């Protein structure tokens, strides 16, 4: 058995090379590793993000092959719009939510949070490193789903027009905004509740039930602009009809931006506060 070599400790908030970035990079890597090895969550996130897109194209292609007169090709710009809605507004956010909750509660549910706290590292730093790791994992999965969408759009286009480069880029930006926002909010909310099942149930209920219902209550008027889904929808590169789950209540770009920032500040702030103050 060899002895552990003594070492001069680095300052508490800096890396060995004096760069806080080195430390932040390592903490990000550690949190990403935890997510990457959480197979169950990853599989479900992949199923939710990729599954509907694959089904969408497979069914469309079969229908077109069986009856080309009645069914258009599965690809093309129109189907790209439908696929974008599926990823950006429904199944992508569900996948993002699972990843965000896993990142927000993983340490606590495994019982290792106290072991990280006793390193002396700031609890807020421990919380903060979860957010970019969750976003990186979320974007990798959503990016894969978007790649499948683009592939299907072009491969199954037949004679239909295909999306232009600007729409492809705008679409990518939109799904990253939509899923990234929900992922970050989920990290904060999950850290606040410290309960993985509770956070998942509450966020799904909000996403699928409460938020669309509130968006449809016209008497709420402009208060509905405070909904995350409405602020996100403002940045959609494709038309979203007014009213309904995929609704877009007209608002200025500045207001939509402020609403997004407010959601991030509130939920990440609450998550950080809970992480800093709770008994470990």
């Amino acid at each position, binding site marked *: 058995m060899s002895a552990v070599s003594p070492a001069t400790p680095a300052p508490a908030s800096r890396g060995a*090379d004096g760069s806080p970035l080195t430390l932040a990079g390592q*903490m990000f890597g550690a949190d990403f590793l935890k997510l990457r090895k959480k197979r169950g969550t990853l599989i479900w996130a992949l199923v939710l993000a990729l599954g509907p897109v694959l089904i969408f194209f497979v069914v469309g292609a079969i229908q077109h092959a069986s009856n080309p007169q009645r069914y258009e090709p599965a690809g093309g710009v129109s189907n790209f719009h439908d696929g974008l809605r599926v990823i950006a507004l429904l199944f992508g956010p569900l996948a993002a939510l699972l990843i965000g909750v896993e990142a927000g509660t993983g340490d606590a549910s495994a019982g290792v949070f106290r072991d*990280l706290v006793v390193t002396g590292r700031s609890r807020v730093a421990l919380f903060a490193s979860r957010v970019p790791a969750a976003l990186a994992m979320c974007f990798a999965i959503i990016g894969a789903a978007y790649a499948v969408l683009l592939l299907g759009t072009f491969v199954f286009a037949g004679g239909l027009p295909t999306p232009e480069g600007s729409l492809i880029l705008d679409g990518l930006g939109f799904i990253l905004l939509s899923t990234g926002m929900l992922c970050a909010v989920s990290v904060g909310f999950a850290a606040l509740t410290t309960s993985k099942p509770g956070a998942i149930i509450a966020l799904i209920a909000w996403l699928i039930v409460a938020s669309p219902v509130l968006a449809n209550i016209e008497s709420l008027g402009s208060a509905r602009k405070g909904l995350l889904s409405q602020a996100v929808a403002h940045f959609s590169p494709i038309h979203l009809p007014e009213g309904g789950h995929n609704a877009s209540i007209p608002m200025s770009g500045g207001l939509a931006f402020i609403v997004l920032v407010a959601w991030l500040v509130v939920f990440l702030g609450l998550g950080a506060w809970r992480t800093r103050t709770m008994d470990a």
Partner: protein
Amino acid sequence: MPTQTDNGGSPGQMTGHAAIETEGVTKRFGSRAAIDGVDLYVPRGSAFGFLGPNGAGKTTMIRMLLGLTHASAGSMRVLGHPVPSERGQALRRVGAIVEEPRFHPNLSGRENLRIVAAVRGPEVQARIAPALARVGLSERADEKVKKYSLGMRQRLGVARCLLADPLLLILDEPTNGLDPGGIQEFREMIRAMVEQENRTVFLSSHLLDEVEKICDHAAIVDRGKVIAQGPIAELASGGAGGARNELIVGVDDVELALGTLEGSELVREARRSDEGLRVLLSGDIESAAQVNASLVRAGVAVRRLEPVRHSLEQRFLEVTSRLDAPVAQEEVRA
């Protein structure tokens, strides 16, 4: 062996020289005090046992020292730094296992250490392999932790502590769940850390035997109060100021021996026992020779004369049973 005197401090005088110093630390849950005005002094370079029955407040005390929960009152210093105000500085060279060591079960032992090393700082990555080797887990470091036995998880917990290159190890009931071989191995590792590497080990346990075999200093805690603390030998004998120097004396004529010792200034008390006589000396143990001489001069044949070895268990039972009566905290100082 360092003592409180060597370090120039004692409970109630926070000097910063000790590995751990606390003064009047209290933790309340509602109206109940889980920890009640505890003063602790843990000398650097010692193996310190924090001994008490289950529910005595040992884990609560450890959690406060590590900043996992806040104290309701009092002050604490860990490696010279006040806690919680300088918690980051204080814990930089502290390794700890609180209750059962927990890990991400879906990660390997090595990956679990990588995560903690990343949080401690980039330079710590280089300590992972030596730490695994130190606890004998190199061969199985790449297996998922969910396949580890409890003993392996305990060892991995110690390896995680070693990543800090710790000046102070805080271990909460560390031998729980270990088999006898594992306990022996663990004892040897702790003693080596203290004696060869000059680390301080603060070890909580409800097992008297364990503390007596591993530690050189101890504090006895019961119902949230520290009721005695100091070097193990002095704790067991009743303390430096009140050591019980007692002899077992085997003689051929008990009556004659009792008559001879009665009134002797060397003897505080003499009484019959299964072995012959139990003699409590007035002075130190060196006066046993004079007692022997006086018995022989009186014509008593002495076939056995042996100092009574007090165990920590006896002392523990004495002091904890005293808690039923209102007593002041007793401190044994070196």
